[in-house]
């Protein structure tokens, strides 16, 4: 089968590759680009371990072909921390023990980043609902909920500060 040329921006960096059309986006990220923070946990789109942002929208990268992302801009967990500074959601997961084995964590974090973009101060029920597409087998979700609340508070505090304040 003929290869396809794709041009995909990942974490602000542009990549050009020839790929097989059937190459799953998650394999493109992991194998072609070496961005192995995005994980694979199932083959039927239930677990969400492969969640990334596609033009700022949370999607499951195992349920997309790389060719579908041609010309699009992606963010993976590797792209969250800026200048050595953790993203508030990452910080929340660390502070609140929101992870154990860490395998679902990148996908979970990306879903939460998507959530907080849409809803800056979600209730506990909204948080639990928003991560329905992300399975975690370790935490029982409770510390993840705490982590999201931590991140939401942190981001709200950050938003209150005048621009340019550090």
């Amino acid at each position: 089968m003929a290869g396809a040329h794709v041009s995909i921006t990942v974490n602000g960096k542009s990549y050009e590759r020839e790929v097989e059309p059937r190459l799953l986006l998650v394999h493109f990220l992991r194998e072609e680009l070496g961005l192995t923070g995005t994980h694979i946990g199932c083959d039927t789109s239930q677990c969400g371990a492969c969640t990334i942002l596609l033009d700022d929208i949370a999607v499951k990268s195992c349920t997309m072909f790389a060719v579908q992302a041609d010309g699009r801009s992606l963010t993976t967990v590797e792209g969250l921390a800026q200048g050595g500074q953790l993203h508030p959601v990452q910080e929340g997961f660390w502070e609140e023990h929101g992870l154990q084995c860490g395998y679902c964590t990148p996908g979970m974090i990306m879903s939460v980043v998507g959530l907080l973009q849409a809803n800056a101060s979600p209730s506990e029920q909204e948080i639990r609902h928003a991560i329905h597409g992300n399975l975690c087998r370790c935490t029982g979700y409770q510390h993840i909920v705490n982590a999201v609340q931590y991140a939401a508070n942190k981001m709200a505090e950050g938003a209150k500060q005048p621009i340019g304040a550090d």
Partner: protein
Amino acid sequence: MTSQVDIPKLVGARVKRREDPRLITGNGQYTDDIQLMRGLHMAVRRSEYGHARITRIDTSAAKSMPGVVAVLTADDLTDVLGPMPAAPATPDTKIAPRNVLTKDKARHVGDPIAVVVAEDRYQARDAVDAIEVEFEELPAVVDLEAAMQPGAPKVHDQFDDNVAFYWTLHTGEVDEAFANAGIVVKQRMESQRLQGVPLETRAILADYQPGEDHLTLWTSTQAPHLLKPIIGGMLGMPENHVRVIAPEVGGGFGVKADLYPEEVLCCVLSRRLGRPVKYVETRSENFQATVHGRGQLGEYEIAATKDGKVTGLRVKILADLGAYQGFFGNVVPTLSGLMLTGVYTIPALHCDIYGLFTNKTSTGAYRGAGRPEATYYIERMMDLLARELNMDPVELRRRNLIPTEAFPYQTASGMLYESANYGPALEKALQMIGYDRVREQQKGGPENGKYTGIGVSTWTEICGFGPSAALPGVGGWEMGKVTIERTGMVTVHTGTSPHGQGQETSFAQIVADEFGVPMENIRVIHSDTDKVAHGVGTFGSRGTTVGGAAILMSINKVKEKMKRFAANMMDANEDDLDVSGGRVWVKGSPDKGVTIGEVAAAAYFPAAFPPDTEPGLEAISYFEPPNFAFPFGVHAAVVEVDSATGQIALKKYVAVDDCGTVISPLLVAGQVHGGVAQGIGQAFYEDVVYDENGQLISGTLMDYALPHAEDFPTFELDRTVTPNPMNPLGAKGIGEAGTIAASPTVVSAVVDALKPLGIKHIDMPLKPERVWRTIQAAGRPS
């Protein structure tokens, strides 16, 4: 006073995990994240039948597919020595030969028949479809009671029947207890088959280096040290030429404490092809080829006096081993046998356990492994007994709890419970759940067909394995090595293999407190058999209890040696010295001392050696536990059952656990939350379903239901602390607590809710339809 005592202790404090920065940034390295030059990919052709004779395999088309390097069947595996080992339950346990590829017969859906190795994973997957296998389907053995029947189809033709082992236990005057009983209650209960579902499926990478005759195996395992000698043995390689590494492991839950054919296959193929070979299980394969958990049928009879004193227990358990035996597959049901009596004084006990072959995936350890079953059964029986006696189920429990003054307590099942104090945990849980309030509320009857129920369940478990005698062929000890580096940094090697438990943090907390050095100066190394001399692994809630104790032993040895060097440096008597606060100092004159860095410098530089002292500051210890550990607790839940649909809403959940001394409260809470979620998963949602032909019906995550975040309320946790007197850390273990406690707790709550309808028991999982049908059958639908 002085700096030494002012440093806040880390043991018992809320400490953020040191593992997390790499994991939250995508820098954790799991097995499939490792890419080696010239790496090949393996894919497996598996049986789609539960039981079938293999009449023909044709690999020729597959061999000519693009990128295919090799296609192998059982006939090609001349360099694998013997079948995979499995621990026996009894001396005469029949161990079914489990070859890495099956030859004549497929015995479960997913039984591996052939493998493809190709340049990339897409090509390997394509070639699997090109392997032609002809099957002649055979009648399958699926049901446990049917498997015991004379004339049942046999899973293994060479054995007389499907019974792999019979394990029995008899203590006290059982017949007399039943003959004289004021009341006898019987119940048949199921603890259904489950999937472990670690979010990372099994992933394996083998790399053989011919120059050194050295094999490196990266594998997503809980027990690299267990695998090393076995892999060496099966490949005919000296053990010390095999290196097993468990990199970041994405969840284990027991199912990764086993060893697997694909691990051997990747090693064999790498050695044969001279290139690295990787295998990553798909989730669908994981459901077929990674050991399942539970799979038990219990028939119980409990005898008691009219005033609710339990006098005897008669138990028959049928345990589903599956088609072969996972490494721990035979052992798991015997753990149920050892924990039959729970937290109660039950003087007379008879138990028969049959381990049975069926045409299903092999079973093995899954979080709790044998203890959730035992706890579920005894707790259900206590509820049933209370119902028959018309007694409050909590009051019945109070009357039968082993009293605090009776510890250490010898159970009828032969266990020595080292220490416990059940009463306070029970009272605390009752207060947290608002027991009396809910009971009062129930008097109002159902609202809109919604019934409220409350369940209270006690639990204890056997964990912290060893002693070694309990784990033949494996060992129950653990290794801990502590090295003070030349710069005063501390390096810890542990034989445990944490995979989410956070022991890079909790072990560092212990070390930090003991030496008084900052966490940043401590590094904990694990899960690499070339770096860590020996070990057993992380399973059965043993990591902290056994692994931590070994480290503490080494810390104490290193302290002694530090004192020797420091005494020499300060011209003091080593008996007068103490180590803390990052210094070695003179008792009584704390200002007089040297820093650990100074001692380390002295220990590695010849000028400072005291007489008859070897250089270096390092100690290695093996902790052999004198006994198992028996943590305990009480959980309680409130549910609301919609009688029109059978749907259950979990309204409140409280857990009071006692795991002895707590090293890291944050991590303990995480363990309890996750465990409770899994226990509720078993109670409400999870179910491995096979049809009568042995076809796996629940074969993907679209059919095997896991709990989601929305399914839970906020769990409310508290604890009591009863230090373990037989453990140097005072620890008891917490990894499996939640799973063991939660299933009986929430089932009890649901059954309690439906008490007005005359319902006494419902088998797990309490899926809405099952609950609804039970309500229908009770004849009083709302």
